[in-house]
């Protein structure tokens, strides 16, 4: 007994990898009853953009969080229109873990998410609009401030505006000031909006 050299690094067992590692085999494995097989399939599908449909479909029925995480990572790596559409759909989910993971994934895809942002910020569901603003929180895209200004100028829902104005306090510039003053007028009776808009204006003046 004691220290023993690992001469053979154990690889996946036959049972764990019983399906071929080509595209059809991996797509089959995505429905395997064993979560580990599904995780490996989802991970190995990342180099196949044509798998994004299957990954999005699996995401909608997957119950094992560890598989969901890997699917989201692979969709982020694929980053095509289907993948981004799948991620945006997750913003409607009741599952907070899925929603938050999708928000984190979308933040990694600024250029791919940008074409969707207009639609998300006009979604009929205010929660989706709030989550879209959450995506903007660390989206490295030059239009972030424009989108936020649009939200505080046009959105009728106070919670959506409140989320956006908080973020404008971090990323806003002189350009945002007229919209912030207008917001204060539009929600003149709402103390939180007054407070958050004043704070944003103060921070912009300090910068």
């Amino acid at each position: 007994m004691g220290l023993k050299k690992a001469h053979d690094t154990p690889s996946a067992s036959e049972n764990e990898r019983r399906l071929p590692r080509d595209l059809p085999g991996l797509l089959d494995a995505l429905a395997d009853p064993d979560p580990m097989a599904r995780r490996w399939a989802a991970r190995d599908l990342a180099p196949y953009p044509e798998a994004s449909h299957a990954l999005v479909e699996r995401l909608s029925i997957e119950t094992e969080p560890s598989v969901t995480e890997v699917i989201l990572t692979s969709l982020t790596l694929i980053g095509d229109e289907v993948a981004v559409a799948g991620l945006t759909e997750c913003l409607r989910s009741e599952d907070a873990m899925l929603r938050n993971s999708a928000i984190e994934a979308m933040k990694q895809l600024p250029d791919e998410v940008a074409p969707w942002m207009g639609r998300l910020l006009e979604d009929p569901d205010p929660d989706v609009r709030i989550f879209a603003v959450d995506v903007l929180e660390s989206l490295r895209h030059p239009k972030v401030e424009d989108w936020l200004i649009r939200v505080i100028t046009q959105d009728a829902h106070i919670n959506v505006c409140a989320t956006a104005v908080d973020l404008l306090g971090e990323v806003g510039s002189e350009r945002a000031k007229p919209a912030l003053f207008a917001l204060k007028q539009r929600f003149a009776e709402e103390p939180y909006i007054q407070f958050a808009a004043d704070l944003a204006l103060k921070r912009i003046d300090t910068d």
Partner: protein
Amino acid sequence: MNDPCQISDEDFQKFREFFYRKTGILFEDSKRYFVDKRLLERMEATGSESFRAYFTMLRFQASGTELQALINVMTVNETYFFREEYQFECLVNSLLEELVARRTDTATPIRIWSVPSSSGEEPYGIAIYLLEHWPHINRLDVEIISSDIDTDILTQARRGLYSPRAVQHLPPNLLKKYFKRVGELYQVDDNLREAVQFTRANVTDPTDMRLHRHIDVIFCRNLLIYFDDLSRKRTAESFYDALNPGGFICLGHSESMSRISSLFRVRKFPEAIVYQKPWEAR
């Protein structure tokens, strides 16, 4: 006109994106001097007359040897024996105790994976610590595997030769017991060198990661800080599958798995905070 022997802003961007795709390592703008210096060194070593010529070779060379050589100079390899020793204490006092208490199969060795190996101080340090401080080492088998993306550093690790600076935190009795003097240097004794298995692995490459399985404890300290968010997440997910249920990950003191992935449980032990794959995980 650009000096062909300088790295322009566009060259830097192009190289940074390429290197990131290959390794998961993202160089921030603040690393510009570090990157330029090493690129120019490799351009000179390969006789490349411009960045463009060098980059073309890097991308299209069939053998990939220049890419590996570049990875070797771009990765940082600075460590010493018993660095962040409190985690070794945690290993012997808490982690292995819990793993052993729940084991039903005593015939299978406990597997510890140290990544990146750098020049070997960590895996050999773990081996010494176990031999000195873990009483069950006499009745249970332990395998130590250690990996790095840098093949030169793996060769150095296998050789096990260290400067006085690298061994300065080792108590004199351990230095005497496990090392021999080779001129001004210290060499890890043959039994220890024989006990550690060194492998080449890129932790962001699923193909490499698939070869590392059934691990009980992973030491991955001060590596993920060089990665961007997506590469950190991919690595964490691969670690999840590399670990046995109940297996632990020890990160560097400034790193937190909670900011990377929700797959692991945070465990607070008296000596350290570590991350655990749930026992019930499949």
